[in-house]
Structures are given as structure tokens and as C-alpha cells.
């Protein structure tokens, strides 16, 4: 689908692998690149050949040193074996792969920010349209794909797309690499068919081997997705449609179940710190809003919450939707709103810890104190 937008023939086409895995709870790409870099190179050669690309970039998050080392080593080996460079394997097709180390900005996982960063500019998302497929790296058509997508290609080419389709649900075929962290017995990276029930993934011996403590809720697809309560977890299947019907997202496949020893307010506080720190500062709602929201959450978490803070948070997060260049602000807005909706009582309890919770922060007669007083 994504490849079909790339115009053919007229301009050089670039292919870029998005390995800037920054979503909290996601670590599958790092694992995949470290353990099997050759498959990524193989997939890139297939993708590059299909798109007619002469150059490919792998944008790796700067912190992933083992993955970068493994990749560079694998690329060196591939060049040695004449599987990269000019006339790959004696064919007419040539491809060069360059590994680019990012500087560790979450927003560079957004494809246009990634392209900006790759070009040496500030890692800030571009306005769309034009989309990267038309105008990407060096203003040329660019295909930006995830590590996992590229790495699935060799298998599909070997066994045929029908076989791959059979693995998943009718609407979304294939498998997905899940990375499970949090309160489970065996944390790690698991490949499973799409549509696997969430509880099967968490409880079966084949995968995570059960939950530690009492399940309170679960983040189904990385920190920016809406949280699921324990009841919802039992009904959820890990595919796009099922999760969308529950008001959440499939996201990056980072599953984070948590038990009842964790405070939802504290979790949200951590998330808020992350997103306000990672905002690129380009557009207003995110630059100012993430910090604002985070300060309110931290007030609630530190026993300084006031009545009405929950409503304030909710209305601020509504202001994130549709007003920003990229979805980073919405990626904070979605969890905030879902945490509040699903675990409201915890927030209310946290606010009640403040003995002065009922007195509003701003009195009717509040005037900022200034030089004129």
C-alpha cells in the first residue's frame, strides 16, 4: 500500500528503514537488528529492487549501540560477499546501504522528522502534504518502512504471500512481533500470529507464562495507546480491528500489563515527563501543552491536586487532537484521557490526599502580583 504512492522512473527513489524505536515499552526492532541483521539487509535488497532504489538508509536510534555494531558488521560482510554495492550477485541491480545514527529523539520516529534528521536538519516533522512517498529524503520520493516490515519480506518471498496471509486474521494477514514488558513472568520479544487473544499471549507457557499479581490493566501497543482495563484485556484480540473497536490502537506491539501494585497516577506522571521532554518544540499545542499537562499530573501525583484538575486535563488533551503537525501531543492526550476515563477513582483519591483540594487555585479575585501593586 505504502509503496504504491512512490512514483516510478522520473526521480531517484530512496528507501529508508525506520529503526528509531523510541516508544516506551518497545524494544523489538533493537532485538531484531541485533540478532538478525542479515535478514534486514536481505529485506532491504528486496524492497530496494521492487522500488528501484539505488540507495537505502537505516536510521537507527543512537542509543542502540549493539544493534548498530551488528548492522555495520553485517553490511560489511554483505559488501564483501558482493551482495551489496554494484551489480549485486552479478545482476544489473545495485544498492548501497548507509546506517545513520540518530541522536535519540523520540519524534524522529515520525517519518518526516526522521527524514529531516537524516538530511542533517533539526528533527522536526514536516508539514504534510507532500508525503515522503512523493517528496522525502533530499526532496526525492522516499519509502519509509519499519524494521519489522522489511524483515518480513524474505520470508514472504520464499513462502508466498498466501502462506503469510493465512497466519493472521482475514483482514490483516501475517505475524507480528510483540514485545512484552511489565508484570509478566517471561518478558521479551515474541512473534505471534495477528489476532491472537491478548490473554493467550500473556498467560500461555509458550509466550509470557502468566501474570505476576492481579492484572489491573494493560497498555496494548506502546505507551501512546489507550489503556485497557483487566476486563477489556480478556476480550481483546491482538489485531487492528479488534483493538480499534475497543477504542485503542495496535500501535507498535509493545504490550505492558501492570498489576494492582502500580499507581496509575504515577504511571501517567512518568509518561507525561517522557512526552513533555520529547516534544520537538515546533508547534504550539505540543511545545506548551505537554509541559502544562505534565505539571498538572505531577501536581496530582504529589498530593497537590485540586478539584477540577481532572476536567482541566481532559479538556487540554482534547485540544491536542487535530491541532498539531505530528501525533506526538495526541500520543500523550490519548493515554491521559483513557487513564482518566478508566481509572478515574484513583485520580480522585490522589486529589483527595490534598487537604486543600476544594479551594480553587485561582480565586475569583485573583490578580497576578506585579510591579504595580
Amino acid at each position, binding site marked *: 500500500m505504502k509503496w504504491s504512492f512512490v512514483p516510478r522512473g522520473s526521480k531517484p527513489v530512496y528507501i529508508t528503514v525506520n529503526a528509531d524505536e523510541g516508544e516506551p515499552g518497545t524494544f523489538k526492532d533493537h532485538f531484531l537488528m541485533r540478532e538478525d541483521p542479515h535478514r534486514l539487509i536481505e529485506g532491504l535488497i528486496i524492497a530496494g529492487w521492487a522500488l528501484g532504489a539505488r540507495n537505502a538508509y537505516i536510521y537507527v536510534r543512537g542509543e542502540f549501540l549493539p544493534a548498530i555494531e551488528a548492522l555495520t558488521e553485517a553490511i560489511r560482510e554483505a559488501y564483501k560477499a558482493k551482495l551489496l554495492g554494484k551489480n549485486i550477485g552479478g545482476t544489473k541491480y545495485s544498492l548501497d546501504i548507509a546506517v545513520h545514527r540518530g541522536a535519540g529523539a523520540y519524534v524522529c520516529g515520525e517519518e518526516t522528522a526522521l527524514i529531516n534528521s537524516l538530511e542533517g536538519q533539526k528533527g522536526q516533522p514536516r508539514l504534510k502534504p507532500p508525503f515522503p512517498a512523493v517528496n522525502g529524503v533530499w526532496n526525492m520520493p522516499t519509502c519509509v518502512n519499519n524494521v519489522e516490515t522489511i524483515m518480513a519480506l524474505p520470508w514472504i518471498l520464499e513462502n508466498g504471500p498466501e502462506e503469510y496471509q493465512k497466519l493472521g486474521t482475514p483482514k490483516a494477514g501475517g505475524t507480528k512481533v510483540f514485545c512484552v514488558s511489565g508484570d509478566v513472568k517471561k518478558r521479551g520479544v515474541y512473534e505471534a500470529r495477528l489476532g491472537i487473544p491478548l490473554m493467550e499471549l500473556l498467560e500461555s507457557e509458550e509466550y509470557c507464562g502468566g501474570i505476576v499479581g492481579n492484572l489491573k490493566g494493560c497498555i496494548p501497543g506502546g505507551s501512546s495507546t489507550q489503556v485497557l482495563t483487566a476486563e477489556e484485556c480478556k476480550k481483546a484480540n491482538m489485531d487492528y480491528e479488534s483493538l480499534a473497536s475497543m477504542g485503542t490502537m495496535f500501535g507498535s506491539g509493545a504490550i505492558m500489563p501492570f498489576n494492582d501494585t502500580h499507581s496509575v497516577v504515577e504511571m501517567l506522571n512518568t509518561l507525561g515527563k517522557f512526552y513533555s521532554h520529547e516534544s520537538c518544540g515546533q508547534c*504550539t499545542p505540543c511545545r506548551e501543552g505537554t509541559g502544562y499537562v505534565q505539571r498538572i499530573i505531577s*501536581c496530582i501525583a504529589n498530593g497537590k491536586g485540586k478539584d477540577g484538575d481532572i476536567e482541566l486535563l481532559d479538556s487540554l488533551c482534547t485540544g491536542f487532537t487535530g491541532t498539531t503537525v505530528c501525533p506526538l501531543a495526541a500520543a500523550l492526550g490519548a493515554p491521559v484521557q483513557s487513564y482518566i476515563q478508566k481509572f478515574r477513582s484513583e485520580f480522585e483519591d490522589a486529589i483527595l490526599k490534598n487537604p486543600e483540594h476544594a479551594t480553587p487555585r*485561582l480565586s475569583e479575585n485573583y490578580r497576578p502580583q506585579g510591579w504595580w501593586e
Partner: protein
Amino acid sequence: MKEPSVVTITVDNKEVQVPGDTNLIEALKAVGLETPHLCYHPDLPVSGNCRQCMVEVDGPRGMVLTIGCYTPVRPGMKVATSASSPKVAEARKAVLEFLLVNHPLDCPICDKAGECLLQENYMMAGASDSRLSPEIGKQYHGNPEHSSSDSKGQHRGGKRVDIGPRIVLDEERCIQCSRCVRFMRHVAGDEQLQLASRGGHSHITTFPGEKLDHPYDRCVTDICPVGALTDKSFRFRKRVWALSRIPTVSMDDSLGANIWVDYADGIIYRIMPRCNPEVNKSWLSNAARDVVQNIHENRLLNNDLSAALQIIKETKGKIAIVLGGSCTAEDIAAFKKFNIAEFFGGSFLPVQKADGIARSGDPVANRACLEKAGINTNLGELSKRAGEFELLITVAADLWDETPEEAGDLNKIPKRIALTSFNNNTAKNSAIAIGIRHWLENFGTMINSKGLEQKLQGTPTKEAALVDSAAIIAGRLHG
């Protein structure tokens, strides 16, 4: 110029005709609908980062929120503004609230107050109660070099960061719209300003150890939508709502940049660019603004013509009249009536290259009119033939101040009358000096280097009330 295309679009359920080759902000402006905006500037590339100009536009997934500045007009499109869509109104209000989170609201001491886009947008889109309080709001985290904590524990930014010889930066007022960065990058062509750091820490800065110093750097104070960048020459001098404006044309240079002259009580406080897409767009050079710096100092207020009339009467030899570049067409026509004299025009100053922004490089502003009147603009010829003349009348041509060496030859002419605005070397070098109005105080016509005829309007300064314009003095000298 090609004929602008007109397309029909639906705005708030009403069909309107708008220009076709523009964006939604400009199209809506054409039908009288103001869209609040901050980062968008008609003469700068779109950056779309303030997110204030939200509108709803129909798309494949129904009406979606989008920014007006980056949405091109397409025939038949449906647009909803805040007038018909509560969603747009809410979005604009939300963005405005975010903008004001870390804005200091020191409007009472801000030079921009009164012409601040953020204030205008607040009245237009927001105008709601604050939900901020010291512990959750106003935590500015910009440049760590200048940040401090105030008595309430709120983080504050640098209030008077000296970023250049002419500009002062107030960091906490900055809303990171990047207009100044884009101006320096795309118009001035010299990237001296940058947005450094990220997220809530982002701030405007120059390169380490360098200053903002460019012949057009004062433009950044015009385009700054808030009071973050202010002009040292105007800081704390006058509230902008106390100023009156006169639209006129700069005679500093032959491009004839369109300007606003801001004055109050007979004193000119500043010159601002007046947008004219065919002449200077929205830009004005520092040199053109500097004209007002000493406009009220050292003025020549002598308007007694009797001595001058006496000299002219006694003169039997040849008379040379030098008309300066800032003479209007009317001044030139009035002096041309002295048919006993020989006319020269212009200046000894060399013609420089046009900078492509708002200067043609030609110091003789009204050269086109001088040439049209058949006046020799080669002053070198006058120097060579200086011995032939008995009387020299210079009109708004301060030759002994601009180029004292070249003007030295003119000392051979025994009698000299200077009509000038200032009590300068030219006045001192002449037997008789008569005060005239400065071109800022003068009405008239000029033709710029592009052949455009432009009208000057005089500013009623306190000196303008005391002296006459060159044209009137010409009439009186002629009798």
C-alpha cells in the same frame, strides 16, 4: 502581471468568490474574514507551527481540522471557520491557551502592546478566563543562560537579552513562531538567528559568540508577532496606540520603499515598512529607518528669504541650481521656472548594487523625475565647470556633508545659497542657508527605480510648521 484566477468556494455554508492561487488565510481575508494567525506572514515561506489559523476543510474523511496557511484554495472546497463550526472555535481557543501558558503577560510594559498579534487573537479567538496558577503554569524553560526563578517559584526567561547592536530579545515573550528565523534565512539570506533546543526548552538565539547584525535586522522587530524582539531605538519611547500613522514613500533610496511614519505631537518616533508587493514587500532597510534618528535635531529653521533675493538680484553671471535626490516632482517643476539658471541634479555618492530586498542602491531617490525634467544628473560636470558660475543654489542637496572632497570643487563658485533641512556643513559652507522641509514632511510625487509613480505625504512635525517646502520657497524666490 497575470490576471488572478477567481474560484468559488463555500465558506460557512455561503458561496463566495475568492482568488484561486493562494492559501485559505489570504482567500478568507479577500472576502473580509480574518483568520487569527501568528507564524504566517505573506512574504515569508509557510512554516505552519503556531497552529492558530485552524479551519475545517472537507476531505475524503469528512470535515477535518487543518491550518489555513498551508491549505491551498481549490475550486468547490467547503470551509468552516469559527463562525459556523464550534470545533474550529474550540481548537483555536485551545491553541491560544497553550500559547499563553508560558507567555509572561507583561503587556503593560511591553512595547508591542497595541499592535501584538497575540493580543488581537486573544480578543478574536480566546477571551476566556485563565486556568493557570503559579504551580502548574508559567514554567518557562528556554535559554538556560538567562533563566531565573521569581519570588513565586516560577521559571522566567531572559527579559533583555542583547542579541545585537539594534535588537533586544525578551526570551519569555517569544512564542517560537520562527518568523524571524525564516526572515533571516529566506529574505536576508544570512542565517544569524536559530531556534535552539527542543520542546518547552526551545528558544531563539544567535550562534555562540555572534550577534544579530545585518542591514535588515530591524525587520525582525516588525514581523515579531509579540514583543520578543524589540528595536533599541524605539524601546519604551512611546505606546503604539498614542502614535498616528502617515503613509508615505521613503526618499532615502530610489526604490522608494513604502513606509508608515509613526508620529505623535509633532515628533516622529519610527518608520515602519508599508507592505507593497511590487516595491519593498514588507521589508525596510535599517538605513531607511535611521533617517528619523536625528530628524528633530540640528534643524535649520531660517525662512527669511530677503538676503537670498538680494543676492539673486545682484547676480549678473551664470546661476547653477543643484536639486537633491529627495526633491519631489513638484519641487523640481517649481525650480525649473528659474529659466535663467542651469540645472544639475543628484549627488556625488556612488550608485551601488541593488540588494534585492528593499534597496535599489541609488542614493538619488527621484532620479527618474530629474531625468524626465531634462536635468543633468552628472555633478562631475558641474565640478569641472565650477569656474563658469557666479551663484550656486543647492536644494536638499547636502553635498558638503555627503561627499566633502568632491564638493570641494564647488567652493570655486563665489556665491552660494543652500536650501537644506539641517544646520549642517552645507549650510555652514554657504553664504545663506534657508530651512526647508525634510522629505518626511513633504507632499509630492516621486518615480521610483522601477518606474512606479508614488505619492509622498508629509508628516506634521513641529519643524514642518516653521519652514516651507522647497517648492514654495522656489515660488517665493522667483517672485
